[in-house]
C-alpha cells in the first residue's frame, strides 16, 4: 500500500493536471474501510472535470455514504498521459479518497451519461485488474454495475456489465447494497446467486439472464429469459416525491476548475415537453417537482457548505418550473449581497424565459443561448418542439432589449422529413435576429451583434418516437451543413457544424445491440479513449474495429426500422410504451403536435400507470414565501 502511494506520488508531477487524481477536496468523505461492511467505487468513465460536474454522481455519493455500513469513493478515467504512466509503473486504478485500488472494492459503479464514454469503461476495468467480461468474473471480483440514461439500451455493453440499474437511483441503490451485504455475510457463495437476487429488484437488469436470437436478415428474432429469477421486462426504478428524498447539501468541492463549477440544486426531474428526438424527455417521465420551500432551503445549505459563488437551479428545462419566477427572484435577492449569482442552465425559447434568465444572469451577460432545434415551423411540428415563430422573435426582442449583444442558437439537422427549405429556415432565424437587433439597437449598434448558429446532427435514440428513424450519414450531413452555411449571408452570423463522424459512431452505440459489443471492445484495443472529445476521437479506428469484428455500421445507423421489429431494448421499460412511440412517430409524419401533459390532457404514454406515479407540480404554499 505504501508502495502504491510512493508510485503515485512519483508519477503525479509528470502528468497534466495532477490534481485530477489526488483527491483531498472539501466535503470528500473518507471512511475507515475496516469499519464498514460494503465498499463502492463510483467510477466515472470520463475525466475528473466532467465527472465532478455530474449532479447524479454527487447524489449517489451522498446516498451511499449516508449509510453507516457503507463507504463510497470516487474514481475517474485517467487521461491518456496518466493511463500510460499507470501502465508503465504498474499502478492500478485507484480512488480519490484513500488511493485504494478499485479492484479491491465490493462494487464498481459506472454512471453512463453519454455513449462515447463506453471505451473508457474498459480502461477503468482493465486498470482495476477486473476481467472485462461479466462471465469471466469470480466471487472474488467486484460486482460491476452501471446506471444513468444510457442503460436504457445497454445492450452494446451487455457482456461487460453484471447489472444495469434503470431509473432513479435513490431507493434502488439501497436495495442493491442490502442484497449484496446479505450475500457477502452469507459467505459470498455463488456469484450467480447474487445476480439472481439482484434480478428480483425493480430497476435491476442482469444481461446474462437474457439471450437474444437473430433472424437471417439480421434483425432480432426474440429475447429469451434464461433464469427464472429474472422478469420478462425490467421496469425502471422511480422516485415519486422529490421532497421525500435526501439531497446532497454538502457536495464535494473540487480544487481544480471543472466543467460545471457551481452549486447545483435540482428543481424537478423529468420533462414532458415531448420533443421526439429527446431521450431524456422520454425515459424520465413524468415531471416531479421539488417544492419551492425545499428548493430554497437546499440552495441556502449548499451555498453555505461549499462556498460556491454561483448557484444553478437545474432540471431538463428550469423555465418550466412552476414557481420559477418567484424562487429565482427570492434566491437572487438573498444571495447577491454575499457575492453569489443564481443561474439557470438552459433558456426556453420565449420572452418570459429570456427575461427570467436576464434578471439573474450576472455572470455571463455577453450572450444568451436558445435552442429552437428546428428551423421551420413545419419541422418543429414534426419534432414536437412546440415553439412558434412568434416565440422565437419575442425571445430575440427580449434578449436585445435586455442589452445582450450576442445570441447563440442551437439547431438539429438530419431530422426526419427534412427538406432544404427547412435547412434554409435555420439560417433565416439568424437573419431575423439581426433585423430585430437593428430595430431595437439601431443600425450602428447592431453592427456589433454576433449570432452563432450551432448545428448538430440528429442521432436516433432508443425509447424515443424517432427510434425507428435512420441517421442521414456522413456525406449527407456535410451537404446539409453546407446548405445552412451558404444561406447564412451576413458576416455577423457564425456557423458551427458538429462532427458528422462522431455522430455516426454515437448511433452505433445508441441503437446498437449485443453484436456491437465486439466492435466497442475492438475499438478500445485499437486505442479508442475519450471518444466524446474531438481531439481524442479517431473515426478510422472505429471503422477498422467494425471491419475487424464484422459489424456493419450502416445496418445500425442508416436503416429505417419497422414498427413490428423487436428492438434490443424492448425488454427494458422506461415508462413510455412502444405502442405510444409508434403513435407518436405517426403523428410526427403527419406534422401533428402533442401537448405537454403537465398543463393539458394526458396522452397516455404509459409512464404514470406503469410506475404508479403522477405529474407533480408544486406551486408555492400560501404565505410561505
Amino acid at each position, binding site marked *: 500500500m505504501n508502495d502504491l502511494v510512493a508510485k503515485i506520488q512519483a508519477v503525479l*508531477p509528470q502528468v497534466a493536471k495532477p490534481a485530477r487524481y489526488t*483527491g483531498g*477536496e472539501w466535503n470528500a468523505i473518507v471512511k475507515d474501510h475496516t469499519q464498514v461492511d460494503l465498499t463502492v467505487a463510483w467510477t466515472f468513465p470520463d475525466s475528473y472535470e466532467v465527472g465532478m460536474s455530474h449532479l447524479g454522481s454527487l447524489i449517489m455519493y451522498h446516498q451511499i455514504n449516508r449509510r453507516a455500513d457503507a463507504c463510497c469513493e470516487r474514481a475517474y478515467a485517467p487521461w491518456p498521459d496518466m493511463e500510460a504512466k499507470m501502465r508503465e509503473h504498474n499502478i492500478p486504478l485507484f480512488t480519490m479518497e484513500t488511493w485504494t485500488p478499485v479492484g479491491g472494492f465490493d462494487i464498481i459503479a459506472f454512471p453512463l451519461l453519454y455513449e462515447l464514454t463506453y471505451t473508457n469503461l474498459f480502461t477503468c476495468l482493465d486498470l482495476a485488474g477486473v476481467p472485462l467480461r461479466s462471465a469471466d468474473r469470480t466471487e472474488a471480483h467486484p460486482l460491476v454495475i452501471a446506471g444513468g440514461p444510457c442503460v436504457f439500451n445497454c445492450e452494446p455493453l451487455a457482456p461487460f456489465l453484471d447489472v444495469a440499474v434503470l431509473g432513479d437511483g435513490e431507493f434502488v441503490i439501497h436495495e442493491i447494497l442490502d442484497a449484496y451485504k446479505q450475500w457477502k455475510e452469507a459467505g459470498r457463495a455463488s456469484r450467480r446467486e447474487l445476480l439472481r437476487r439482484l434480478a428480483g429488484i425493480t430497476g435491476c437488469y442482469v444481461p446474462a439472464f437474457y439471450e437474444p436470437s437473430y433472424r437471417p436478415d439480421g434483425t432480432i428474432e426474440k429475447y429469451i429469459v434464461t433464469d427464472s429469477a429474472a422478469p420478462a421486462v425490467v421496469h425502471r426504478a422511480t422516485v415519486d416525491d422529490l421532497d421525500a428524498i435526501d439531497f446532497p447539501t454538502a457536495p464535494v468541492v473540487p480544487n481544480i476548475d471543472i466543467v460545471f463549477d457551481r452549486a447545483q440544486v435540482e428543481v424537478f426531474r423529468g420533462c414532458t415537453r415531448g420533443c421526439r428526438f429527446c431521450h431524456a424527455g422520454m425515459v424520465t417521465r413524468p415531471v416531479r417537482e421539488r417544492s419551492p420551500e425545499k428548493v430554497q432551503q437546499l440552495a441556502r445549505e449548499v451555498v453555505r457548505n461549499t*462556498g460556491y*459563488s454561483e448557484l444553478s437551479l437545474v432540471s431538463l428545462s428550469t423555465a418550466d418550473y412552476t414557481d420559477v419566477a418567484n424562487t429565482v427572484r427570492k434566491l437572487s435577492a438573498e444571495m447577491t449581497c454575499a*457575492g453569489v*449569482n443564481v443561474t439557470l442552465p438552459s433558456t426556453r425559447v420565449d420572452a418570459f424565459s429570456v427575461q427570467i434568465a436576464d434578471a439573474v444572469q450576472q455572470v455571463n451577460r455577453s450572450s444568451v443561448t436558445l435552442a429552437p432545434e428546428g428551423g421551420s415551423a413545419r419541422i418543429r411540428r414534426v419534432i414536437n418542439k412546440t415553439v412558434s415563430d412568434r416565440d422565437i422573435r419575442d425571445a430575440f426582442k427580449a434578449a436585445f432589449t435586455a442589452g445582450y449583444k450576442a445570441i447563440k442558437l442551437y439547431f438539429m439537422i438530419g431530422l426526419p422529413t427534412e427538406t432544404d427549405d427547412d435547412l434554409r429556415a435555420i439560417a433565416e432565424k439568424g437573419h431575423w435576429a439581426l433585423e430585430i437587433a437593428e430595430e431595437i439597437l439601431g443600425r450602428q449598434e447592431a453592427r456589433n451583434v454576433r449570432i452563432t448558429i450551432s448545428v448538430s446532427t440528429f442521432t436516433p435514440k432508443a425509447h424515443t418516437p424517432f427510434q425507428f428513424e435512420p441517421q442521414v450519414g456522413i456525406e449527407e450531413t456535410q451537404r446539409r451543413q453546407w446548405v445552412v452555411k451558404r444561406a447564412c449571408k451576413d458576416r455577423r452570423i457564425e456557423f458551427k457544424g458538429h462532427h458528422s463522424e462522431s455522430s455516426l459512431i454515437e448511433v452505433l452505440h445508441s441503437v446498437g445491440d449485443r453484436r456491437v459489443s465486439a466492435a466497442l471492445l475492438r475499438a478500445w484495443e485499437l486505442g479508442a479513449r475519450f471518444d466524446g472529445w474531438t481531439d481524442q476521437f479517431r473515426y478510422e479506428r472505429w471503422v477498422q474495429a467494425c471491419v475487424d469484428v464484422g459489424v456493419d455500421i450502416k445496418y445500425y445507423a442508416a436503416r429505417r426500422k419497422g414498427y413490428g421489429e423487436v428492438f434490443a431494448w424492448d425488454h427494458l421499460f422506461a415508462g413510455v410504451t412502444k405502442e405510444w412511440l409508434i403513435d407518436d412517430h405517426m403523428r410526427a409524419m403527419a406534422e401533428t403536435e402533442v401537448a405537454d401533459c403537465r398543463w393539458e390532457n394526458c396522452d397516455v404514454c404509459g409512464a404514470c400507470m406503469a410506475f404508479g406515479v403522477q405529474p407533480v407540480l408544486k406551486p408555492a404554499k400560501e404565505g410561505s414565501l
Partner: protein
Amino acid sequence: MKLRIRLAKQHTARFFSHLDIQRTLERTLRRAALPLAYSQGFNPHPRMSFASALATGASSEGEFIDVDLTDDVAPAEFVARANRCTPPGLTFVDAREVPAKGDSLFSLVDTAAYRLTLSAASVAVVADAVAAFLAQDVIEVAKEGKRGTRLVNIREQVYDLAVEGSLPEPGGARVVVNLRAVLQSGSQGSLKPETLAEGLAQVSPAFADTVLVGTHRLMIYRREPRTGALQEPWDL
C-alpha cells in the same frame, strides 16, 4: 481592515495551480463566513491580492495574501476560523493587520527562499557544483521567451546557495540532498529552481545526473540591493 496572511501548501495541495489556489481560498473564506469585502461590478470577487505565483507541484510554507475585510476580525480568530474550512494540505499559518492603503504585495517582494530536494550520486557532487557555481560571476543559461530564446545570466539571480543536509536514498546507492537556495522571484525577474539545476550541471558536469525531486518554498522577501538584507512581508 486589511490582513496579511501567511499560508502553507503541502501534500496534495501542492498540485493546485495558482488559479486553483485563488478559487479555493475564495471558497474557503466564504465557507468560514468571514466578512470579505467584494469588488464592484456584475461579477463581484472578494478583494484578495497574492504575492507571487508558485509552480504547480511545489510545496510551500511561505505563501502570502492580503485580504480586505468589511469588519474587524482579530488575526488569530481569522486564522482559526479559516483553518476549519480549508481542504487538506492548505493551512493558514499566521495573519497580521497591515495598513489598508499600502502597496500591493506583488510589487513589494522580489526574492524567495527554497529548500530544493535533489537525488544525487553523492553529497560531494552537489557541494562541488555549488562551490563552482558561486565562484563564477557569469553563468548563462538559454531561456525561452516570447521573442525566441535568449541567454540569461542566472548567477546574478542567485543570492545564496548552500547544502543543508543529506540522507541515503532508501534502497539505493544515491543520496537525497537538501539545498537551500535564495533566488530572485518577482516582477523584475524570477529564477526557476529547474533553471538553477541546469546552471549547476553547466558548471559541474558531474552534477548532470542529479534530479530535482522536490521544490519547497520557505519564505518570500524584499531584498535590499545594496546590503543584501532580506525583509519578510510582515515588515513591509
